[in-house]
């Protein structure tokens, strides 16, 4: 199975963002984390691609998940 590219768009104090990251770490999934509170380029990318103003937003290759949805993450990551 080839590894999927996983990007997490998050803010520092957001509890659901931390849950997403912990879930990925517990499942040994490598991911890139973008702090959209500070990284305005990442914020724009997140908003333009997802049409959402909400964190966490997760890109798994071209699929977009908004919020911490463990079942959906498992499905999209093939866990």
């Amino acid at each position, binding site marked *: 199975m080839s590894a999927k590219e996983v990007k997490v768009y998050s*803010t520092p*104090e957001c509890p659901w963002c931390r*849950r997403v990251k*912990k879930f990925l770490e517990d499942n040994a999934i490598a991911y890139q984390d973008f702090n959209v*509170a500070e990284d305005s380029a990442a914020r724009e990318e997140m908003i333009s691609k997802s049409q959402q*103003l*909400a*964190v966490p937003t997760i890109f798994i290759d071209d699929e977009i998940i908004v919020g911490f949805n463990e079942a959906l993450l498992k499905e999209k990551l093939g866990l």
Partner: protein
Amino acid sequence: MRELIIVGGGPAGMTAAVYAARKRIDTLLLSKDIGGQPNLTAGIENYMGYQYIEGFELMQKFEEQVRQFPLEQRIGQDVTALSRLDAGFEVRTDNGESYQAKAVIIATGKRPRPLNVPGEERLRGRGVTYCAICDGPLFAGEKVAVIGGGNSALEAADDMVKIAEHVYLVSLTPFTGDQILIDRAKDASNLTVFLEHEVVAIAGSSRVEGIAIRDLKSGEEKSLEVGGVFIEIGLIPNSELAKGLANLNRLGEIEVNCACESGVPGLFAAGDVTDVPEKQIVVAAGEGAKAALQAHKYLQRL
């Protein structure tokens, strides 16, 4: 048929799970998520044993404790229906599964109350948010509105005056939050307060562009140009499952006696979804323990 199904994975549900497992009750824990409302709380200073702990971290500790026991868990399944059978109950989940048990504990907590105004649902995640702590930083430098007059709204306003260009705080009533938070809000130079105003609509095509508010006294309407709307008007109980089975009070909470019994034999409820006074983590955990022990007694009598 299993012995017990616990619906909900917050403090009440997880505590009930540990107590049930220790009684070796054949239990299934079903929940949409793990942690519940404390996940959205920053710091907790009144859960005994911890002088300070973040809500998220406390719920991780709860979760680790649940995992110490051989207990069946299905997380990520939202229970959508509960019905009575001859010898127990059946629950159905949003992914089409159904499970049966002799007893059920409902510990489904509460969720943010929506405003129920035009535009709200359509613009959810597009400027309308119910999690200021999560999404606040996305509105840096913009004008935003915070709706509500209680502690959550005042705290959200206090956070947002540091991030946003301007904050409008709109409350249907005079402030109901703590004086210390009201004073802090009044000190901010980039905050405008509209008390006794109702939100009429949220406007915008693909993103929030503004809100319409109405002065309850004069009836005068105003439009405010904002990019974000933070809705902090309290919580409603996730008690839909119990409708038609147990009694709900006027707030929609499940009525229980001091033994967490709903009045329907074998149907128990615990935590914030019930009419037990004081919505606190320590109270919910205690109620969860009681519900599991009462369910154990009930199952033994069968």
